[in-house]
C-alpha cells in the first residue's frame, strides 16, 4: 500500500512537472528527475538543460553501443581544454569549481560530458556528491578532480551509460508515449536503479507502467527489450488515484497531514488538499496525452544484428528451437506409478 501510494504520488508529481516543463520550454526535454531529488531540486530548477548531441544525426537509424562509442571518440571539450568554462561564474578565480554543486550546475547549464552518467547526493546535502563516470575511467576521474578546488567533496563510481544516453532514452520513451497516446506509461524520469543513492548506484531512466491499461504489459515488454539496462521499469496495477474521503487504507495517494480529518478544520482541509490533487491529476493526464512518440531503437545500448552476429531475437529463437523431448520411457514409468 505504501509503495503504491508512493508510486502514485511520484507519477503525479512527475506528470505535473512534465507539463510545466513542456509548457515552459515548448518541448519536453527538460524533465525533472524522478530520483536524486536533493541534487536536482537544488541545482536543476529553472536551469535549461541543453539537448544532448545527437549521436547518429537525430532520431533515425540505429542507436546502439557502437554508435555511442563512435560518438565518444571525439575528444570531450570539457576534458580536453582545462580552461573550458573557466570564464563562467561556476568557477573561482583559479578556474576551479569551488564545490560539487558548482560542478553540477555547470554541467546542467553547459551540457554533460559524454563520460559522466549522473551526479547525486550521498547524504541528502550538496556537500558530498557522487559522480558516476562511464566505465569508471580513471583519466576522467583525474580530470574532474583536477578541476575541483576541493576534490575530496566528490566520490566517484563507475556506471555503464552516459547522461546523454539516458536523456536520449528518456526523450525517446516520452515521444513514444506521445505519439502512441499511451495511457499505460505513467511517468518517465531520470533515476538511480533501486533508489540506491550510494556508490553502488547506477543511473537509469525510471519508467512507471500501469498494467491496468490494456497495453501496459506489451509496452513494458517493448521497453525492456528495446532499452535493457538503460531503463528501470516499475510495472504493476498502478493507477493515479484521486478518490477522496477514503484515507484509511484505500488505494489513495497519501494526504498531507494524515488521513483522519480534524473537527472544525475538516471542511477547509478537504478543499486544501482536494483542489491541488485534482489539478495535478488533470495536468498529469494532459501531459501524458500531449507527450508521445514511437521511435524505439535497439536494446541495451547494443546492436541486435551488427556484423551478422546473433541478435536478441535470434538468440531467443535458438533457445526455443532447442527444446528437449523426454524419452518415451518416462511416460511408461508414470503409467506404472499411477
Amino acid at each position: 500500500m505504501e509503495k503504491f501510494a508512493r508510486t502514485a504520488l511520484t507519477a503525479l508529481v512527475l506528470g505535473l512537472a512534465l507539463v510545466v516543463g513542456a509548457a515552459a520550454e515548448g518541448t519536453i526535454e527538460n524533465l525533472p528527475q524522478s530520483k536524486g531529488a536533493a541534487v536536482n531540486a537544488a541545482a536543476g530548477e529553472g536551469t535549461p538543460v541543453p539537448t544532448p548531441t545527437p549521436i547518429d544525426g537525430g532520431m533515425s537509424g540505429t542507436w546502439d553501443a557502437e554508435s555511442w562509442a563512435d560518438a565518444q571518440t571525439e575528444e570531450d571539450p570539457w576534458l580536453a581544454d582545462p580552461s573550458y568554462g573557466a570564464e563562467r561564474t561556476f568557477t573561482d578565480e583559479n578556474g576551479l569549481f569551488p564545490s560539487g554543486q558548482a560542478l553540477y550546475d555547470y554541467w546542467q547549464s553547459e551540457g554533460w560530458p559524454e563520460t559522466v552518467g549522473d551526479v547525486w547526493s550521498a547524504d541528502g546535502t550538496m556537500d558530498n556528491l557522487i559522480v558516476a563516470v562511464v566505465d569508471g575511467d580513471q583519466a576522467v576521474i583525474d580530470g574532474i578532480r583536477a578541476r575541483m578546488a576541493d576534490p575530496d567533496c566528490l566520490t566517484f563510481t563507475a556506471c555503464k551509460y552516459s547522461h546523454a544516453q539516458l536523456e536520449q532514452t528518456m526523450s525517446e520513451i516520452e515521444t513514444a508515449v506521445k505519439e502512441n497516446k499511451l495511457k499505460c506509461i505513467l511517468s518517465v524520469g531520470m533515476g538511480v536503479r533501486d533508489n540506491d543513492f550510494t556508490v553502488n548506484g547506477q543511473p537509469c531512466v525510471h519508467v512507471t507502467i500501469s498494467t491496468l491499461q490494456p497495453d501496459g504489459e506489451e509496452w513494458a515488454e517493448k521497453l525492456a527489450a528495446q532499452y535493457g539496462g538503460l531503463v528501470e521499469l516499475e510495472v504493476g496495477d498502478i493507477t493515479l488515484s484521486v478518490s477522496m474521503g477514503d484515507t484509511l487504507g484505500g488505494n489513495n495517494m497519501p494526504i498531507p497531514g494524515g488521513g483522519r480529518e480534524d473537527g472544525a478544520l475538516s471542511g477547509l482541509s478537504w478543499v486544501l488538499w482536494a483542489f491541488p490533487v485534482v489539478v495535478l491529476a488533470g495536468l498529469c493526464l494532459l501531459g501524458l496525452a500531449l507527450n508521445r512518440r514511437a521511435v524505439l531503437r535497439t536494446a541495451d545500448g547494443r546492436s541486435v544484428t551488427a556484423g551478422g552476429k546473433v541478435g536478441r531475437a535470434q538468440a531467443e529463437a535458438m533457445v526455443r528451437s532447442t527444446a528437449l523431448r523426454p524419452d518415451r520411457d518416462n511416460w511408461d514409468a508414470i503409467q506404472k506409478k499411477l
Partner: protein
Amino acid sequence: MTDGELRTALADLRAGDREAFERLYAGMSTPVYTVLLRMTGGRQTAEDLLQETFLRLYRDPPGPEVRSPRAWIFKMARNLALDELRAERPAEPLDALERPAPADDPETRLDVAAALARLGPEDRQLVTLRLNGGLKFRELAQVLDLPLGTALGRYYAAVGRLRDYLNQ
C-alpha cells in the same frame, strides 16, 4: 499446447478422463522437461522430476480457480527442481544435456547449451521458463515471485548476456 487446450485437458482430467492426462503429457512434457533439464543440468534428475511433476498433476490437478494453469504447472516443477538442487546432488556434466531432440541443428544445440550453462541459475530459469515453458511475463513473475518489472528487466538482461555468449 495452447492455454485453452490446457484448461480443457485439466477440466477433463478432473472429471476423471484419463485420456486427458495423455493429452496433457503430450502437450506439456517437452517444455516441462526442457525447463527441468536446464535448471538441474542433469538428465536423470530432470526425468525423475518430470515424472514426479506429472504424477502430482494427475493426482491433484489445478482447479478452475487457478488463473494460469501453465504457471501453476511450472511453479510446481520449479519447486521440485529447487528442492532437488538444495539437496546438493552433484549435477551431471554438460554433455549429459545432449540427447535426441526435436529436429534442430546439433551444433546450435551445443552452442545454446553452453551459452545457457554460462548464465547464472536465476537467469537460466528466467530464460528457459519464458522461452521453453512459454510463460507470459506476468506468469513468469508469478512463478518466480518477482515484480513484473523486475522479471522483465532481468529477463532481457539475461537474454542480452546469452546473445553475447552465443556471439563469442
